[in-house]
């Protein structure tokens, strides 16, 4: 068994320098660094995210609850701080997601998460672009950033409108793309969109020029994809665009790699609770354990000011900066050496 780090000291130093630059960036902007709990009695009920669980064993004080989850993002307590009047805040946190190991996943990873009071997602995308370009440009040759809607990218690459497409068109499209029979026909439209997105669209985001400018082909660029279908809103506000409901949510890609996810944050307790209950219903149907809802978070949401927030994966960012092929190259002791 190897006891030595899988990352080179060059990349261990790059991590340290990058974290220092990030803190400097937010210091300059007057954004406050905060620290919130890793352990909580609740977690996100999203059926596609599994949390690690652990037990509280009372030595001095019995608690109502003894089952605790390791957070998958510091989102809930950070929003409670915003609802309490903190103003814009950021955090660099270790987060945990059960079962996720691949060239781009380590079950324990580092997230940079920040919230901007009074901003919407469009303004936040500009700031994310500014921070990421500042970090990436000295190391890799970036071409112009692209901002494109989820609808436009589907129309350009697959010729379908993701907000109005029918199930039979989705099945035909998957077949045409060599993805026939992956999903059965009863699966809902979102699953077909996710299949087409992750297999056909995402690999092109941030590397090939979707605008068709041949001179810049294959140079990496930051790609911001915004306005996901309302059914994929998660914790984002929903608005109407061209008679379709869209989630005010964006994701960031480069070289086909997902770097982050942002929202114009939903601040309505009832609506968020309804979405969580639907998540729990879907977990139950799929045979997954239901999650006790975070009542403290839900109760704070009606007090959450207008704000936009984003989470960026630091390990993946370091991979892009160093052109690493595997996440283990940028983590000193990944899961199999931890």
């Amino acid at each position, binding site marked *: 068994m190897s006891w030595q780090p899988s990352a080179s000291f060059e990349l261990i130093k790059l991590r340290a320098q990058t974290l220092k630059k990030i803190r400097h960036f937010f210091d300059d902007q007057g954004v406050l660094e905060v620290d919130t709990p890793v352990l909580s009695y609740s977690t996100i009920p*999203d059926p*596609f*995210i599994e949390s690690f669980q652990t037990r509280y064993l009372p030595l001095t004080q019995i608690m109502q609850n003894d089952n605790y989850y390791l957070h998958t993002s510091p989102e809930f307590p950070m929003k409670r701080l915003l609802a309490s009047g903190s103003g814009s805040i950021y955090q660099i946190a270790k987060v945990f997601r059960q*079962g*996720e*190991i*691949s*060239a781009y*996943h380590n079950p324990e990873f580092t997230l940079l998460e920040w919230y901007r009071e009074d901003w919407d997602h469009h303004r936040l995308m500009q700031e994310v672009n500014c921070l990421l370009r500042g970090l990436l440009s000295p190391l890799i040759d970036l071409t112009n950033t692209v901002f494109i809607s989820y609808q436009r990218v589907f129309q350009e690459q697959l010729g379908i409108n993701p907000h109005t497409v029918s199930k039979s068109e989705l099945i035909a499209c998957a077949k045409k793309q*060599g*993805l026939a029979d*992956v*999903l059965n026909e009863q699966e809902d439209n*979102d*699953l077909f969109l*996710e*299949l087409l*997105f*992750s*297999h056909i669209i*995402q690999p092109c985001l941030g590397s090939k020029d979707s605008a068709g400018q041949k001179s810049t082909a294959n140079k990496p660029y930051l790609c911001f994809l915004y306005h996901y279908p309302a059914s*994929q809103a*998660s914790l984002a506000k929903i608005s109407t665009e061209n008679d379709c409901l869209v989630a005010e949510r964006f*994701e960031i890609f480069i070289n086909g790699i*997902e770097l*982050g*996810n942002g929202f114009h944050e939903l601040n309505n307790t009832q609506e968020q609770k309804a979405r969580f209950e639907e998540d729990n219903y879907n977990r139950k149907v799929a045979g997954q354990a239901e999650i006790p809802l975070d009542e403290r978070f839900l109760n704070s949401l009606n007090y959450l000011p207008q704000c936009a927030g984003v989470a960026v*994966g630091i390990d993946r960012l370091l991979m892009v900066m160093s052109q690493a092929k595997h996440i283990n190259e940028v983590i000193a002791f990944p899961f199999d050496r931890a």
Partner: protein
Amino acid sequence: MATYSTNEFRSGLKLMIDGDPCSIVENEVVKPGKGQAFNRIKIRNLKTGRVVERTYKSGESVEAADVMDTDLQYLYNDGEQWHFMHPDTYEQIAADKSAVGETIKWLKEQDMCTVTLWNGNPLAVTPPNFVVLTVTDTDPGLKGDTSGGGGKPATLETGAVVQVPLFIAIGEELKIDTRTSKYVSRAKD
């Protein structure tokens, strides 16, 4: 029926796909921050050798293929079939031409080979990484040339033709790497 879940996928795992036994060459996990995860695999069809891509929703199960590799001794060829024997049980198994395939040119009697069995029947034969074969035909050697700078073709006892150094003569035993079809050295006793 044995099955494997997508979280057991790894290269070398044998699955039944479209009625044919296949081996996973590469397993890639596609897991977005939000949304459904998929396993995208490259698989080699063990009957045809063709490599194709397949995608599965993570969490699904796929039928396992009863495929196993056994080390058997090559005995002889009767004109139609190639006969192998288990060295401990003396059990004999015959493989046809489609199973032996390209390996024909490396098969020397009494060598140990890896025979891939599907439901007990030979599917493929893999020769040892290195075989020792006698040169049956090559141009005359050049005296004094031991540099190995140039090369010439030589026919071996199994019919295989490999590039060898100029100093190699008919009747010599050569060590050959079957994976690259390349000459390694003269066989040492």
